[in-house]
């Protein structure tokens, strides 16, 4: 099992969700997050003074998939979340040891 963490633009969430569901991935968890990458935020102006917004608001999507589906899922996310502009976000993938469905007690791939 793999855990995919995709940090994407807010307005791309709907596209990413549909793309993943289309590939048979129907579960996900999202979080409002803030951060920066190479772009290092941007500047805004309030009452005549410029200030840096270092931590730009983004949405983090977490999806757990079988190893076999990993490539399909990441490809779907990239395709859906891409605008080509700076600030599209990143995808991180990590190994996942275990998962449990609380209602039934099923474990492993059955629980995804």
């Amino acid at each position, binding site marked *: 099992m793999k855990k995919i963490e995709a940090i994407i633009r807010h307005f791309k969430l709907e596209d990413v969700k549909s793309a993943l569901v289309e590939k048979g991935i*129907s*579960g996900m968890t999202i979080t409002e997050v803030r951060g920066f990458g190479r772009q290092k935020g941007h500047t805004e102006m309030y*009452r*005549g*003074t410029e200030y840096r917004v270092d931590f730009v608001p983004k949405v983090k999507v977490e999806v757990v998939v079988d190893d076999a589906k990993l490539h399909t899922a990441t490809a779907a996310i990239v395709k859906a979340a891409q605008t080509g502009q700076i600030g599209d976000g990143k995808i991180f993938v990590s190994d996942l040891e275990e*998962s449990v469905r609380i209602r039934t007690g099923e474990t492993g791939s059955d*629980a995804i």
Partner: protein
Amino acid sequence: MSVRADNKNPSDAEIEFMRVFSGAVTLRCWIFVAAVSGLLIVGNLPSPLFAQETASQGAAAPASPPAVQPDSTGTHGGAGNDTTVPVADAKAGLTIKDVADRVGKNVISINIVWTLITGFLVMFMQAGFALVETGLCRAKNSAHTMAMNFMIYPLGMLGFYVCGFAFMFGGGGGAPALGTSTAVLDSMCHFQFLGKTFNLIGLKGFFLGPSVYDCGVFALFLFQMVFMDTTATIPTGTMAERWKFSAFVLYGLCIGTIMYPVYGCWVWGGGWLAQLGANFGLGHGTVDFAGSSVVHMQGGVIALIGGWMIGPRLGKYNKDGSINPIPPHSIPMVMLGTFILAFGWFGFNPGSTLAGTDDRIAIVAVNTMMAGTTAALATYLWMVGPRKMKPDPSMLCNGMLAGLVAITAPCAFVNSISACVIGIVAGVLVVEAVFFIDRVLKIDDCVGAISVHGVNGLWGILSLGLFADGTYGAGWNGVGADSYMGVAGKGVTGLFYGDSSQFIAQCIGGLACFTYLAIISFIVFKVTGALSGGLRVSPEDELDGVDLPEMGVAGYSGFAMDKASETPHSH
């Protein structure tokens, strides 16, 4: 897959039930509407039966008084017993004098109603101030900022009731338009100098006692009390997010007692500034129609001294002097508050005639509207044009308020073109003043109150000395009741219309306002700070947000709040 958001779908039976039920409800609604319509139609149809009955009754009993009919056209108004003219001498019957007395009485009644209703509008401006100031603060300080704006109403009232009103109006003769004899408020502390009398402070009307137990005086008290509270709530914006609540409460007691009423007496209570015209031939003395200086500049100067003494919010300035802006937590709240204030200003300025029978209220109201709106336009154009900024909504609000503050003094004395010019200047002035106070003086004014009320309050009274066109205010402050500048009926006249001495009187007024308020504010903030163990909360409380440490409850309990993003870090 791991999670399915399993919304429980309604069963077919449930859907069927809902369909039938909603159908039944709709049907009942239609029956009700039909019944009401039917009743209305029947009620309005001419009924021959009803008419016959009335006619036969009239024939049978010709002596009985005509039946009272509903008067839908208003042509029979005044026929009821409660509105007949009281007859002084029953033997003589109704005389012209009875009618004249009643007409005079009605004038007073209209004036009192007008003064009260506009006073109620001004009271509602407290809500506007509360929203503007709270919206411009950070969420973690919202309960504290709101509570200051709330408590200043009762605290300010207390001081004004105890002695503030007496100091301000005790010797001013009251407002004859409200039916009060000039002998009611007639006790003035004064001194003689250079053969002239200088009125310093009124001394009658403490606790609105028996000697001033008078309808007109009470109407005046209500109106002036809410004006005082407008001044009182201005510094809470500048000093927000760090003012210790106990120190603020002590300040709240001082504002209505000794801070506000003194300069108020000098201009509105017949004091020495109002006498500048009669004593020294300086125009009509210092003239301030609705309080650019008496209300707003006073508040602005207190805010300036308070903001300077309490120091900037933590994180506002870096060591090298550069600024970290602290963005507001709710722009919609700020703009709603600004609308409420602009609405309340229609009580503030037109109400200051203290007379609904003074038709000048129409001109006052239009000038108020013109200056506020042109100022907001000017602020917008100045920001996107020469200043190359986005049209920051917080500044647009400051701009509209600046125009309203500036027109408050001259609103009754200028024409609409002048009102627009005054508004445009105010709209530009406020932007530059915010930058100057932020960058040069380095006084951290959370809401721009010093720029809006202080700077534009001064501009307001000075602009009166420039633009007053002489069409209104004949006999103001006892000057030129018969004729002024050789013209009968000529009123307050500014520099551009030929009376430079009026402008000098306005300058003296501004100087006196700044001097007195700067001194008294310094003393009050020193003393209240010492009594409450410092003006300011601890740095830890300030960084955490003052809601919980000072008030015991968060403004937005249960909301996730990212405090790290709210407090800039100085470096």
